[in-house]
């Protein structure tokens, strides 16, 4: 495979020269920016044979093209770096020894898959669209998996689901390699079935200790924690015989017999009976319910289930029913909004960027995305108010019981339950509401080619809602919006099994298929949460192409993901008088606060912090109030424009004297570190003293 020897010394190649100058969009001012080469590194004798992507166990290389140019985003295809492009059954890998753009490096260090993917690598399941472009005409043509290939490709544009655009040019590529690469890409990026995706790699995931809500104990724990009375755990779905989209364990009213449950389930869409997902000690329960099957006209079972929810309430209060199909945008509307959003954030060239930018606000508004976010927040706010102030149970009903009800249910818990605002609690929430209760990720995020009309980024909608919460309550969440961005990106990477499947049962069957295909190899399906527990990158350092980046991305990403203001709040509770004194007393709250801080800040400890045993009961003290009016929402720029840097207006971007954007939290971090060290010093001193005794 690695015996290709082509004429051009690709690694040292920097090009832009042969491309005609394109107007850079500053037509208003009429200035043409002179070309500037990106820095050409010192002559390094890179051995061509060494150029090879790093393969994960089980990963197979499929096609390769030499002397491919990768263009920096929005540089009007003038400045690019040269390298070799590989397509494997898992990723598109671009290998070069040239330095990486800072933006790309930053984004890479802040991704949840940076352990397995190099900075130029793209997981195949991330690819949304493949376009063909040529440099002499502005036209681009979309390539589908069944498109007839032209004899020669001059360039390939990948549009990723993370709203990123990458352009490759085959201008200097030997004939034939371009087509082979494109074909491999189209074939493997859009599989017919989920188990054709590359789902496993031979490293056992470290245990993140997040319950997967597939075991009875997890749900019992949740019932105990919330102390919500009159509900029980049913194991009646053990073989997914009751409902394929629910986990084997579900929580149902105490008075409901399993036989009745089975009978009721038949009446609902997808034979999905209503399930409890959260509740309060006062007895208000949060229940998710699908609509009655369209074929059934009899509403008796639906009423019966509502009656049961009613009876579960210790004070027999009437539950509030939110018919989400009526009050929230449909899945189709969400998808239409998303497509507009995608158009707005994936411009081809600077001209288009500036043209769109002029009307950014009105285009954003006409996408209606923010108005969807506003609606979701409003409904969640109302539901939370009903639970908190009227102590009434809330039934969230939507067609399938696993889309918008997941959004609202999760948001309600985020608003009411302080545990959910921690990293660990948030993981549990997502695992419970989205993964275990069966949000159909495969369909909604389009992981396979068959389900185009069922796509709808409900997941992104939810993350955006959480982002708005984090904006309005700076100190409430333990994680930052950067982490939410990383979660959105992680949802497209097949390395993380969490967001790949339609349901738990689909995951099991995919795992079975994989195991049957590779009987000798153990199959590890990696939950996305394992990122926090993994310390070592399996990508070699040299692959990143630069020496100045030691792999401390773990710590830098940790700082990017942890909300410094939340930690500040923890320290604040330690700074009250007397707290420090009690810090070694396991019965004091100061002790737990310190454990929490130590977990977040310490080098050795693994996140997320687990207050663990004994169960910390739910306390409904700090509920969050939201302002849901549109003028108070902000576009989520660091998600939508994550990869989109402003096209250079300037001719020189890397001046020494230029002040680089420093994170506004950096000042905070330095003080937090100092406080942490002070406390650590004190504690170690205490311990030595204790030992001396």
């Amino acid at each position: 495979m690695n015996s290709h020897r082509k004429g051009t010394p690709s690694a040292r190649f920097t090009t832009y020269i042969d491309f005609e100058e394109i107007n850079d969009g500053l037509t208003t001012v009429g200035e043409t920016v002179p070309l500037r080469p990106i820095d050409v590194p010192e002559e390094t004798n890179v051995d061509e044979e060494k150029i090879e992507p790093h393969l994960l166990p089980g990963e197979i290389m499929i096609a390769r093209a030499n002397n491919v140019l990768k263009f920096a985003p929005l540089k009007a295809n003038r400045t690019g770096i040269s390298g070799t492009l590989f397509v494997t059954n898992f990723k598109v890998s671009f290998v070069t020894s040239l330095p990486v753009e800072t933006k790309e490096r930053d984004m890479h260090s802040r991704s949840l898959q940076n352990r397995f993917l190099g900075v130029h690598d793209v997981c195949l399941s991330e690819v949304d669209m493949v376009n063909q472009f040529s440099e002499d005409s502005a036209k681009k043509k979309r390539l589908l998996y069944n498109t007839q290939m032209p004899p020669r490709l001059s360039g390939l544009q990948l549009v990723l689901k993370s709203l990123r655009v990458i352009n490759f040019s085959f201008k200097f590529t030997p004939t034939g390699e371009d087509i082979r690469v494109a074909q491999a890409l189209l074939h493997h990026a859009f599989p017919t079935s989920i188990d054709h995706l590359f789902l496993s790699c031979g490293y056992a995931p470290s245990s993140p200790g997040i319950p997967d809500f597939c075991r009875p104990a997890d749900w019992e724990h949740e019932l105990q924690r919330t102390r919500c009375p009159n509900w029980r755990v049913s194991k009646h779905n053990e073989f997914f015989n009751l409902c394929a989209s629910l986990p084997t364990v579900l929580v149902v009213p105490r008075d409901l017999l399993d036989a009745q449950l089975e009978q009721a389930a038949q009446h609902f869409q997808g034979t999905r009976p209503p399930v409890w997902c959260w509740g309060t000690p006062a007895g208000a329960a949060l229940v998710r319910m699908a609509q009655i099957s369209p074929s059934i006209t009899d509403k008796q079972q639906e009423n019966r289930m509502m009656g049961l929810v009613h009876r579960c309430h210790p004070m027999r209060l009437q539950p509030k029913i939110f018919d989400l199909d009526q009050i929230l945008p449909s899945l189709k509307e969400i998808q239409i909004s998303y497509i507009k959003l995608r158009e707005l954030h994936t411009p081809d060239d600077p001209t288009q960027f500036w043209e769109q930018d002029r009307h950014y606000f009105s285009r954003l508004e006409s996408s209606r995305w923010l108005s969807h976010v506003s609606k979701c927040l409003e409904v969640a706010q109302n539901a939370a108010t009903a639970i908190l102030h009227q102590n009434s149970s809330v039934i969230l009903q939507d067609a399938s019981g696993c889309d918008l009800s997941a959004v609202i249910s999760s948001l309600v818990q985020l608003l009411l339950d302080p545990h959910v605002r921690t990293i660990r609690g948030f993981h549990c929430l997502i695992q419970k509401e989205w993964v275990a209760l069966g949000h159909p990720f495969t369909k909604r995020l389009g992981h396979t080619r068959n389900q185009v009309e069922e796509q709808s980024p409900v997941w992104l909608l939810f993350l955006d809602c959480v982002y708005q919460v984090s904006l309005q309550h700076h100190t409430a969440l333990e994680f930052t919006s950067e982490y939410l961005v990383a979660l959105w990106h992680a949802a497209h990477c097949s390395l993380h099994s969490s967001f790949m499947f339609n349901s738990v049962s689909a995951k099991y069957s995919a795992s079975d298929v994989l195991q049957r295909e590779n009987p000798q190899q153990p199959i590890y399906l990696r939950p996305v949460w394992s990122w926090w527990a993994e310390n070592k990158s399996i990508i070699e350092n040299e692959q990143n192409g630069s020496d100045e980046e030691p792999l401390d991305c773990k710590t830098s990403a940790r700082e990017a993901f942890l909300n410094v203001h939340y930690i500040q709040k923890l320290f604040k509770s330690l700074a009250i008088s007397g707290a420090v004194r009690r810090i070694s007393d396991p019965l004091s709250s100061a002790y737990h606060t310190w454990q929490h801080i130590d977990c977040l800040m310490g080098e050795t400890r693994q996140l997320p912090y687990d207050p663990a045993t004994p169960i910390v009961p739910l306390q409904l003290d700090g509920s969050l109030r939201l302002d849901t009016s549109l003028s108070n929402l902000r576009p989520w720029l660091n998600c939508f424009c994550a990869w989109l840097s402003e096209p250079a207006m300037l001719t020189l971007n890397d001046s020494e004297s230029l002040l680089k954007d420093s994170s506004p939290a950096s000042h905070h971090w330095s003080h937090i570190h100092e406080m942490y060290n002070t406390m650590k010093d004190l504690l170690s001193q205490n311990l030595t003293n204790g030992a001396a005794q």
Partner: protein
Amino acid sequence: MAARGQRSAKRRSGCFLVMFSGVKPDKRSKVKGITQLGSRSSSSSSHSSNSNTTRSNSSSGSGGSSSSSSNNKGGGCKSHSGSSSGSSSGSGSPPAGTPPHTQMASHESLNSESKSSSLNSKLGHESGGSPSPPKSACSSTSTTSTDHHHTNHQVSHVLTATSKMTVRDGSRTLRPDEPPLVPGEQLEGTAREVTYLCPYVGPKKGTLSVTNYRLIFRSPETDPPFELEVPLGVVSRIEKVGGANTSRGENSYGIEIFCKDIRNLRFAHKQNDSQYSMHLKRDMHISVFRRYRVRHNFAGYGASQTSEENHSRRMVTEKLLQYAFPASHKLPFFAFGYNEQYQERGWSVYEPIAELKRQGLPTESWRITRINEQYELCETYPAVWAVPAAASDNDLRNVAAFRSRGRIPVLSWIHPESQATITRCAQPLVGVSGKRSRDDEAYIQHIMDANAQSHKIFIMDARPSVNAVANKAKGGGYESEDAYQNAEVQFLDIHNIHVMRESLRKLQEVCYPHIDNSHWLSNLEATHWLDHIRCVLSGALRIADKVESHKTSVVVHCSDGWDRTAQLTALSMLMLDGYYRTIPGFAVLLEKEWLSFGHKFAQRVGHGDDRHQDADRSPVFLQFVDCVWQILKQFPHAFQFTEDMLITILDHLYSCLFGTFLYNSERERIEKEVKTKTVSLWSLILSNKADFENPLYSANTKHHVLFPRTSMRHLCLWDKYYCRWNPSMRQQEPVHIRYKELLHVKEQLEKHVDELRKELAARQTHDSPRVASAIV
């Protein structure tokens, strides 16, 4: 120290526009120099003018009104109503604030004051239920009357100084009818039973007072009392609403005050019947207001009006017009009467020569000239210029003849290393015939030659090229590249003052009083305000880039070189030179690029002028400050000041409390002796530096250049300024507040840790057996 910190925090919270009752005068009492004298005069003046208002009974006005009395229930109010009714039998003497009265009143006032204040404090305690009961205020006021005046006065001083006018439709606890006045301020008129039609919390009934500096509205209806204070300088026009032909509902007569700071105030004179007031008192809920208002539109109104009430209202309106537009009434600006003492003398913050020396002048190629000492060569330019050394005084005169209004290219900034410069000027007088001036061409060449690094010079014309061409018809135009060798002309596409004025007007419509949520973003875009901001910012960025990255000198001009040019040079200097991002540096920047180079503040703002439709008004300076805010937002560590300082500057741009922004040019300010007769805004800012300091500022950014992002998506509306009156607009807690809290937490924690360490060490030396338990 702690007290000071708290005080400053409070003061800052004042800047945040919402002033709830938590004002603690006792904390402020230790600020310098206001003595009992000042406080006495303040209390007395209120009394004297009370008698004034009642005495000047002549004829009743058209504005509706009604019987007085009834609504006063607080102790403070009672004492006052008593005093006013006592002196109500006066004759129709002219309503001037006469010194003899004030002297007289001051003696008797002390006793009644102390009584009323203690009564008031009791009231405050009883009625409770407010979000934050003003306990400390009450306890301090009830001690001694003098102390009370003193502290109250301090409140006024501090708040006026920083943010008095930023009081949003919130409320504060100060005694009704007792406005604390700033030094030099006099109460001119008071009208009772006026309703303020707040667009957010509904109508409020109370007392409207007018001083020679501001209007004060107080409503005792709520607890704490509702208060609104607006310096009259912000008033752009006053209109009477209603009349004989309009429907006779309640609140149908009154005045509407249009302000320059994006809000309108509506006061209604018409008194409603007693039934309504009862409901008013009983239920403050806004929906109730609406319901009753509708009903009363049909109910008609009773005609029992005392001419006395009417009269005082008419007089208040008159006084309002008089003091809101002093220039139109041949009155001096209030700044000439304001005599607050500050620790720092703000007028000395900018010394032209010192600033040029800071930039390294004179150099081989640049000299300092006093050719304009008498403002003869160019009357809108400052006295001191820096010009190319190669150009003789005679050359300067010849160039001045070829530049609009004699505004020749003069140095604004020089790069400390490359010697690339930013120079500013007005358009060349090219005209339709395409005139040339050898001297001007040579002069531009001198500027280019003064920078050895580059063989090119950029001429940045701020205008859209169409406008530049159109100006030829009026005798202006732009440099032709044929005539000016090695020069490249670029147009920055920034529109003129009229476009900007219209844009701000639209923006106000969108922001005030209510926001249409469903079309918020598209409405915002339709105002083009942010679009213009983007143009100005990217123009400045382009200049900074040419100077920094290309080491090329840039000449900037627009038509006259005092609007867009000032924006561009000041912003690019802010990006290039960290000095201007400090508090004194920013003052220097404004003094130099805006004030001394003749941005026509008086015309653009319309200080004290009632011609609200004057086409010369335009929010050019506001736009510049907005741009500064956008940069500040992108580089939170690079500025020594916070946005509070920017808001304070904008507030005093209109307030006429300080002399800083008065008049159009340095020459006019010298003529009017502004420096000796008024206080500088920088006195206030430099004396209270701690309140404006950005804790996130890191001084090592001083040597960096800022290149902000200028795409639309990275700009946002400065809601803390434009939407500050709207309580539905969520105000984000600024990050620097949290940073201050962090520092405090750290300090506390370290204190506790130290204590524990010491304790530990002490016990260890005593070898006490309890060591372990003490630690654990």
